[in-house]
């Protein structure tokens, strides 16, 4: 593939980097707050990941389209308006057509606005790159965010509530009958932070590039 094709090596890198080498949560330490708040169960984590993906990729493209028009002094405000508008639109559409999902997410849709990953990507990437690249960067970054969210939610829901996506897994395999009990700690926020910490630990063990040279 040539340098200019839609999925050139450089573009693939945009998609792949945030998954590991440049992960928004574990490497850039952005969006940690929402990673703590909505990872008690898998379902809200997944819907949140999808919503962030929509907002981030569309906002990145819009900012990229306007990048030569946005006055430098008000660029942050402009980014914020674009994000807020998209989030409100997503919220209204969810309420009208997928009411149950909207209820599931409740406050967290609004909190997408404050997710630092989104503004971070608009400022660092959308402002300086073409729309297609910005779109890929948005998708890549939100996937990087999504997989951490889902992994954390998986362990917190399984160990904390004994269910997965609301399905009582541990009850079905009969673990409670032999005296197993859910770990109530897992549903409290500190355990989300510790789970993220463990992911970072494992990631750094596997990926030597992330270890800072002295």
């Amino acid at each position, binding site marked *: 593939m040539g340098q200019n094709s839609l999925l050139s090596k450089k573009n693939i890198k945009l998609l792949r980097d945030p998954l590991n080498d440049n992960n928004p949560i574990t490497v850039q330490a952005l969006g940690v707050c929402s990673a703590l708040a909505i990872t008690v169960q898998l379902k809200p984590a997944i819907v949140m990941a999808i919503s962030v993906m929509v907002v981030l990729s569309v906002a990145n493209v819009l900012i990229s389209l306007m990048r030569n028009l946005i006055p430098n002094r008000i660029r942050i405000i402009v980014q914020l*308006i674009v994000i807020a508008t998209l989030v409100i639109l997503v919220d209204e559409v969810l309420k*009208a057509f997928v009411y149950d999902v909207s209820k599931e997410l409740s406050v967290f849709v609004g909190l997408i606005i404050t997710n630092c990953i989104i503004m971070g990507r608009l400022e660092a990437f959308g402002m300086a790159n073409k729309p297609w690249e910005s779109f890929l960067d948005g998708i890549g970054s939100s996937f990087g965010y999504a997989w951490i969210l889902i992994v954390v939610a998986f362990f917190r829901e399984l160990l904390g509530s004994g269910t997965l996506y609301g399905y009582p897994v541990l009850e079905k395999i009969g673990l409670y009958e032999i005296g197993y009990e859910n770990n109530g700690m897992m*549903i409290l926020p500190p355990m989300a932070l510790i789970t993220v910490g463990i992911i970072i630990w494992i990631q750094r063990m596997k990926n030597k590039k992330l270890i800072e040279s002295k």
Partner: protein
Amino acid sequence: MDINKNSFTFGFTIIMVIIVAALLSVAYIQLKPFQDRNIELEKKQNILSSVGITVDRDNAESAYLTYIKNEIVLNNKGEQVDGSAFDLDLGKEIKKDPDAQLLPLFISEVDGAIRYIIPLRGKGLWGPIWGFIALEDDVNKVYGAVFDHEKETPGLGAEINTPMFQKSFTGKTIFEGEVFTPIKVIKGGVEEDMHAVDGISGGTITSNGVSDMIYERLNMYLPYLNNMKAAIEVERVMAQIDSLVIINDSITE
């Protein structure tokens, strides 16, 4: 063109704000009917679910017509007044002076059994919580309860809308003899207690909100419930007299 000139910055801002405002207004107006419809159907679903009828959103309308036989509005003396119980906004009513509040009541009939459904509304940790509690025809025993919330924490306070929590209300009672003893949400040791259910770990404030809401709302209906209890008592005594009369008659014959 210099995009960093003040005039350009102002122009850019104004145009952007107008576009955004127009876009959001149009989206809001266009989507509002769909959203209102969802909310109305959900309310019907919740009312039905408190008397054990689970229907999906599409069938809520017809099931509501079948099972909910009567909707009445009461004043604080327990007298029936004019008005539409379904359209009454409880969120506004509870802010009024207790004497001026209007109280909606839904009466259902499922397989011949009459049940009284009292709407609830109170405060959780982050926002309003609400629900419906259905009493059996003795206006004492709880047949079922549903709760919902706007923005309680998922996995913690938000668990009040799960069947596991709601089922624990069934069979509990709100009177101890003649004394009003509404159901409390407490931590542990509730199996023997007819007036308590088990709370949610990590959701203490929401659990307390549910307790307060049940106390506060049912308390408003006390005049009506007491009238009902008196009427039931009269009916019971009358029935006893009737049976005695029959026995008496048969003896004299």
